[in-house]
């Protein structure tokens, strides 16, 4: 066939996915979240600089993966619900509350939705906390990885993770993991976004592609 049947480019009819690498890790006094920045529709990269670390509250963020639309919608809904909740209780919400709200949506609509959010943040009751909400479960973990790129770095994170790492160690751990995953997973790439949350607040950082650590054969 010489000409394409459709008058539109292929990627307009493909589902937009954040095939992704996301990671969150807690340290004593806070958390570090990290993500890549690639959004793909089929084989086309429709956004190469998307920030997948979404704010749920001042000191609670979530990392998005899976279907871009589903993930963003869940994050926006929970952001609204948390705003209302924090006004009702008169103080900053707990990370567990945010995670529970995400879990409730993920579980109730689990057949319709295809998104996985990792929720992480700091609150005064529990310090830094990371929660996974995959498929509608709720589980707290010292660290979590997700997205298509995470498969390639399970071995790396299992080997390199140590308990009681410092904030800077955690940031380096996140950056190394993202870099390795981005170099192996075709659906992950672009730049690395980092968010470090502690008692004082949330600090966002962007690391460009050429500033990421390189490993053998890169």
């Amino acid at each position, binding site marked *: 066939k010489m000409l394409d049947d459709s008058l539109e480019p292929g990627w307009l009819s493909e589902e937009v996915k954040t095939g992704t690498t996301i990671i969150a890790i807690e340290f004593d006094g806070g958390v570090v979240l990290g993500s890549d920045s690639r959004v793909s529709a089929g084989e086309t990269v429709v956004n190469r600089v998307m920030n997948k670390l979404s704010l749920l509250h001042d000191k609670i963020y979530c990392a998005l993966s899976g279907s871009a639309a589903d993930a963003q919608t869940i994050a926006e809904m929970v952001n609204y619900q948390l705003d209302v909740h924090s006004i009702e209780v008169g103080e900053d919400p707990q990370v567990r509350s945010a995670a529970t709200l995400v879990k409730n949506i993920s579980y109730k609509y689990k057949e319709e939705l295809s998104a996985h959010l990792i929720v992480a943040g700091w609150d005064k009751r529990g310090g830094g906390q990371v929660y996974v909400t995959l498929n509608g479960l709720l589980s707290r973990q010292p660290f979590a990885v997700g997205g298509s790129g995470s498969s390639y770095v*399970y071995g790396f994170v299992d080997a390199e993770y140590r308990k009681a790492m410092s904030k800077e160690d955690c940031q380096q751990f996140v950056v190394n993991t993202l870099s390795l995953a981005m170099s192996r997973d075709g659906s992950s790439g672009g730049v690395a976004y980092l968010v470090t949350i502690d008692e004082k607040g949330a600090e966002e950082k962007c690391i460009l592609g050429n500033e990421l650590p390189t490993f053998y054969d890169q």
Partner: protein
Amino acid sequence: MAAYMSAGRSENAFSTHDFVPEWAQEEVSTGTTIMAVEFDGGVVIGADSRTTTGAYIANRVTDKLTPIHDHIFCCRSGSAADTQAVADAVTYQLGFHSIELDEPPLVQTAANLFQQMCYRYREELMAGIIVAGWDKRRGGQVYTVPMGGMIVRQPVSVGGSGSSYIYGFMDSNYKPGMTKEECLHFCTQALALAMERDGSSGGVARLAAITEEGLERRVVLGHQLPKFSNT
């Protein structure tokens, strides 16, 4: 990578699942982790030991490191039947070739024989093979022949369903110029990590070092494998 799909079964009046357990209807797969590393003077190869039929572990002490010639081995992943058949055929061809040549065969020759067979029968086969060994011309070499039948020489290669999980570890921990012991340690760790995460890999870790002197085989039992606990 062995993602296993069983062929559709026609519905009979007396369905086989009444008389025979489900796993006996599944094809036997070496859902696996295999790897090979070159070092100056030889290669180190490693594999897990699990063979599954569906969810049943048909063999928990499988040897997936198969000798093809005195100094040439292959690591098998994918369908157990396919890889055994191809390895047997290549062993025969290589043995014959070596007699004609009156010299030990080259690793590249063995690898190309695998590649030719895997490419010709690519539609029928499900075999991911890593060929590794030592010869006088080029020393230690690792050639990977994944499903589809391409061939490429790499200093370090991983394969099988469990390999996905250790790409990150391999990229960050492999350094060129490692010694034989360092390579053995690297392989043991990588296999342990993959066996921990991949349900189709497990059992013991089998390792072998191939050098000019010959072959040295090791087994690392389950309780001796390095532990990486993070919960």
